[in-house]
């Protein structure tokens, strides 16, 4: 277990390094020159050159990357070009919002997806099953912005049940979390259903039935735990995706998350922030996978010894 953990950490570090390198190269290949942008319209070429020098942009790419890595190892994500302040606190300040949204979104996905998936598997090929599966496809086929705008318009603007925008209370969380949750639940329902059907056909479920256990006990105690592994893996993936990928939802609901920060930074070619956000998202993805790897053995003892 400890060895596995260690290996995963080395793996994670290597992956992050790779992500850092690729992002770095891509960003510095961008045609936009941050110094020009920062210097503004009144700047003389001298000013632009000065700023470029101050930012270290006049050094060879390899040197810049090396400096970046050295700082990174010390936990320093650099300073924002545009805001002239350290990147780490900027990201840290937005982390709680992103994490809250992520947790709530995943919770909704899992609750809805798990329930529907199990029900569909038990009613396999019946009307309920078909309805649930078709609905789940509608869920995964709907553009995020459509749902976001619709929920906003109906439940906030028209009905006024929830605040339209902002962050802080549970009421603010409801709509953005549901937007993420409704859309993701479709995938969960499908995965759970498929896993459940698989598990329900397993010998040990037959054994459980042969023991004369009640149906709920067979489903909840024997089948469901065995069907949870793919769900754990999906949660791991979602942890990663939601950290970097909720730009649309955050934009619509004014949610002060990392996605917004990233989007603004991209508009302004604020490379240190883009790098920081990319790395944080990559870290989240790696941590998400790690989470899946660490939780899976709790559910499945067979993985524990491996």
């Amino acid at each position, binding site marked *: 277990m400890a060895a596995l953990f260690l290996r995963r950490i*080395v*793996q994670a570090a290597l992956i992050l390094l790779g992500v850092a390198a690729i992002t770095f190269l891509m960003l510095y290949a961008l045609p936009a020159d941050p110094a020009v942008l920062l210097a503004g319209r009144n700047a003389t070429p001298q000013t632009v050159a000065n700023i470029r020098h101050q930012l270290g942009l006049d050094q060879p790419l390899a040197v810049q990357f090396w400096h970046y890595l050295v700082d990174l190892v010390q936990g320093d994500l650099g300073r924002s070009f545009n805001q002239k302040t350290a990147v780490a606190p900027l990201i840290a300040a937005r982390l709680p919002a992103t994490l809250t949204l992520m947790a709530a979104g995943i919770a909704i996905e899992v609750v809805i997806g798990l329930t529907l998936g199990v029900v569909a598997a038990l009613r396999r090929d019946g009307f309920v099953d078909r309805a649930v599966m078709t609905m789940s496809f509608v869920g995964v086929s709907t553009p995020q912005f459509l749902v976001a705008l619709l929920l906003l318009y109906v439940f906030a603007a028209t009905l006024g049940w929830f605040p339209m925008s902002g962050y802080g209370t549970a009421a603010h969380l409801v709509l953005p979390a549901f937007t993420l949750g409704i859309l993701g639940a479709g995938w969960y329902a499908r995965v759970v259903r498929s896993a459940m059907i698989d598990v329900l056909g*397993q010998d040990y479920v*037959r054994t459980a*039935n*042969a023991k004369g256990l*009640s149906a709920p006990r067979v489903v909840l105690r024997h089948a469901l735990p065995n069907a949870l592994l793919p769900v754990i893996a999906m949660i791991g993936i979602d942890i990663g995706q939601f950290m970097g990928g909720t730009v649309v939802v955050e934009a619509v609901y004014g949610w002060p998350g990392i996605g917004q920060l990233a989007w603004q930074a991209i508009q302004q070619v604020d490379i240190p922030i883009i790098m920081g956000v990319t790395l944080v998202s990559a870290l989240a993805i790696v941590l998400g996978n790690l989470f899946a790897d660490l939780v899976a053995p709790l559910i499945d003892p067979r993985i524990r*010894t491996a």
Partner: protein
Amino acid sequence: MTAPVLAVEGLSIDARTPAGPRRVLSEVSFALAAGETLCLAGESGSGKSITSLAIMRLLPKASLRVAAGAIRLEGRDLVGLSDRAMRRVRGGAIAMIFQEPMTSLNPVMRIGDQLIEAIRAHQGAEDATARARAMLDAVRISDPARRMGQYPHELSGGMRQRVMIAMALSCRPKVLIADEPTTALDVTVQAQILTLMRELKGEFGTSIILITHDMGVVAEMADRVAVMQAGRIVETAAALPLFTAPREDYTRTLLAAVPRLGARAGTDGPPRVTTQPLAATPAGTPPVLSVRDLSVTYRGARGWFGGTAAGHKAVEGVSFTLQRGRTLGLVGESGSGKSTTGKAVLGLVPFAGEVLLDGVAIAGLSPRAMRPLRRAAQMIFQDPYASLDPRMSVGAAIAEPLAIHRMGTAADRRDRAAELLRRVGLSPDHASRYPHEFSGGQRQRICIARALALEPRLIVADESVAALDVSVRGRVLDLMLELQETLGLAYLFISHDMAVIERMCHDVAVMRGGRIVEAGTRRAVFEVPAQAYTRELMAAVPIPDPARRPEPRRAIA
């Protein structure tokens, strides 16, 4: 005779198919007396399992349903029982154990919990834990207290089957249904489990329905036997008369096909199946296969860039030679390294040591350099279905080796495939069909035809008949013998079945833990085994003769 505990009367079962219901079980009737062991025997697909599932009312609802008949447990018909009442019967009055001990236990639940749960479902909750431990004790499992807290994957197959038995018997059922309880186990373990069941039957006074395809097991266990074929019972009789004087033809063929250990005692080679004179091997020709000090190490869990964690030695220091026209049998328990040896001599897994094929060392040869040698040696796998590309017609599959070695035109190859099909007793028109359109025995013939296409001198046959029904098995073995006699083939014949080995081999090597523990001519090894392990292997083989039923013995897990 007292009233039967369980009576099945005119049971018919339909399978739902797109083309309407299909009868898969018709008019099956039998009765089980108290304390009796009834064996349901018959070839694969004859309806043994669905009969037992019907009794438990565990038929998959979506595809199978009871069309007619009654199942009476002490006079009460189970067919019409409510689900709730049926739940009390299941695991209470009737318990069941299944073929696959590996998958029949919930992998994510502790052994103890699974046992306790079974006990709680039918009896009070107070002393369930103590009773569970007592049951583990009763099935003679080592260290029962520790087992309670373990997960199924931490137990061996034999132990798991013991747990299953403990679970089944924990509520003292009147009837125990065991569906092929030992098929997945090694012979030695099988012997232990069978003994255990016999002993427990006495202790718990349970009646048993034992389902098996192995007449040896039937002979060892059954009081009475019901022989099934194609969804019907063709003959029911007490064990002794059935074996000595079977009434039905089908029963007779079934019995005739069963290889008996010791049947070839006193002979040197396999029986002759043709009248052709054997080609003499000129002295001085190198052996077809010569192996010296062969070791195979499997890489451990894959590291990050394919690096190795600790390796696992599957085969160690194995040496033997195999002459043209002869058969070397490799026997040994599961995991002893038989298949690995077979693959290594064909260069299919990396190995250390020396392997000479037709006198040429194959170690370190590039795939290109290896190619000509591939024509000399071929392999037949255990599972014929798995070793045929499901998307390739069998004609193409048989011609495949010729195509690989760029031999002849497409038309030539087609002709050759047709000829080979005829050679293995199939019709040339079968060439355009696909593997799934054949029976298991036919598929194995196709594999043999494919192996013959290149006219090899050596065939490695890895458990080539294990998956086949006894009757089919006999025919395939005969075919292999015939080919050996006519073509002078050498076989490296891998099997865990001592009786099959006895029938097929000139020489035998017994493997255990990756090493050859005993080797010699078949006659020497079988008649005067030098090693205790070999003797144990031979003693564990069930003898298809109820008269020679062994004395109950205490088994150690």
